[in-house]
């Protein structure tokens, strides 16, 4: 057992854990944040993806002890973050989920893709989603949701440039 100190969704958590406990199980079983889903447990399906120090990571193949001192954000922790609000709305509008199992990982990946990559097109979105499996939607609605948010953000950015020029 080792005691780890982590910030989860802005809250400091200090707790003794087994050395072999995964970050995913820590988040779910110790912090009772069930939004992080555990699928393949070998880093392939993407369902357990969450933000660690603002970067998406696989929580099923990250040890809780290795995350000591880090800042974790799970799907429960976005509050009224403006980008995540837009992503959620677009997922809703496009029916980008059915059973919802992959959705927390999809949202984390979408958040990362939209904030990291400026020149997004459909091919790039498809390849970026290669690490997140969805067995319901056939992916198209998810891709369209991300495209929608990207287009919307492009419009509002160019609008503010025009306003600034005026």
């Amino acid at each position, binding site marked *: 057992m080792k005691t780890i100190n982590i910030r989860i969704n802005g809250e400091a958590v200090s707790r003794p854990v087994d*050395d072999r406990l995964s970050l995913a199980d820590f988040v779910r079983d110790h912090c009772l944040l069930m939004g992080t889903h555990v699928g393949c447990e070998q880093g392939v399906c993407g369902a357990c993806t969450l933000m660690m120090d603002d970067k998406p990571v*696989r929580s099923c193949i990250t040890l809780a002890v290795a995350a000591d001192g880090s800042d974790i954000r799970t799907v429960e922790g976005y509050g009224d973050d403006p980008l995540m609000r837009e992503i959620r709305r677009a997922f809703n509008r496009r029916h980008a989920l059915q059973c919802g199992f992959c959705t927390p990982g999809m949202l984390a990946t979408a958040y990362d893709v939209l904030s990291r990559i400026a020149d997004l097109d459909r091919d790039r979105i498809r390849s970026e989603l*290669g690490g997140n499996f969805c067995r319901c939607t056939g992916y198209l609605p998810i891709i369209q949701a991300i495209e929608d948010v990207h287009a919307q953000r492009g419009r509002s950015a160019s609008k503010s440039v025009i306003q600034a020029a005026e």
Partner: protein
Amino acid sequence: MKPAEFSYTRAVTLSDALGSFASSTLGRVIAGGQSLGPMLNLRLAEPRELIDVSRLVELRHTRIEGDRLAIGACVTHAEIEDGKIPDVTVGLMPFVASGIAYRAVRNRGTIGGSIAHADPAADWLTTTIALDASLLLSGAAGQREVRVSDFVRGALDTAIGEGEIITYVLVPRLSSAACWGHAKYAKKPGDFAQSMAVAVVDPERRGARIVLGQRAEPPRLMCNTSELLAARGCAPPPPDLGAAIEADLTDAQIEVGDRSMHRAIVARAVQDLAA
């Protein structure tokens, strides 16, 4: 699917890590854990001790050393992709990094860890052998340098010694006249390659190295193809390219069914040189 029990230690200094590794029984070094993590969960690896080196400042450094770039073993794929460290390969390493698994894996996976794991289908082995890179290994007895091509002995099998840790990946600087080509076939983006090839041609320095990576055996230096291209520099491929590739693939080690795939991938990497 949970790992067998082990005790975990986070090393504070490199000598601390080498000390605990040398005195451990059935211990393993872990960095980003993107290869070892799945193996622990599947219980394909059951170490008694894990020594985490991922936050060692010594292994996160990158510096120019004469004609080479010394990349700290714990630099992540994402850091190489994003240009957070200098590039001496005319863009080859950032390009390769961007195609490793998925961003969430690249954020934690390290170059040293990937090479130490030595999955023959993984991107860094084939790439660093094409670049004729070496590794600096540190152990209780001191340091030694070994070429990546000599380090890899087979699938998941390396020449690493008892108690040794990869500390740096030493990449020779390509001249500005150099060009590279890359081709990879995987069943989906981010999957391990069924076949991949990296071609590096540097007319001013070390000639040409064309390397084929695949699942069954360590990356293979395509000798005939490399020789043919060394004579031509970065010019478009010669008509006898096919024969040279064929000559490099005619042995019992490669299954007949895979041969045409490898032929096409190597040819594509060579064509990519001129692109």
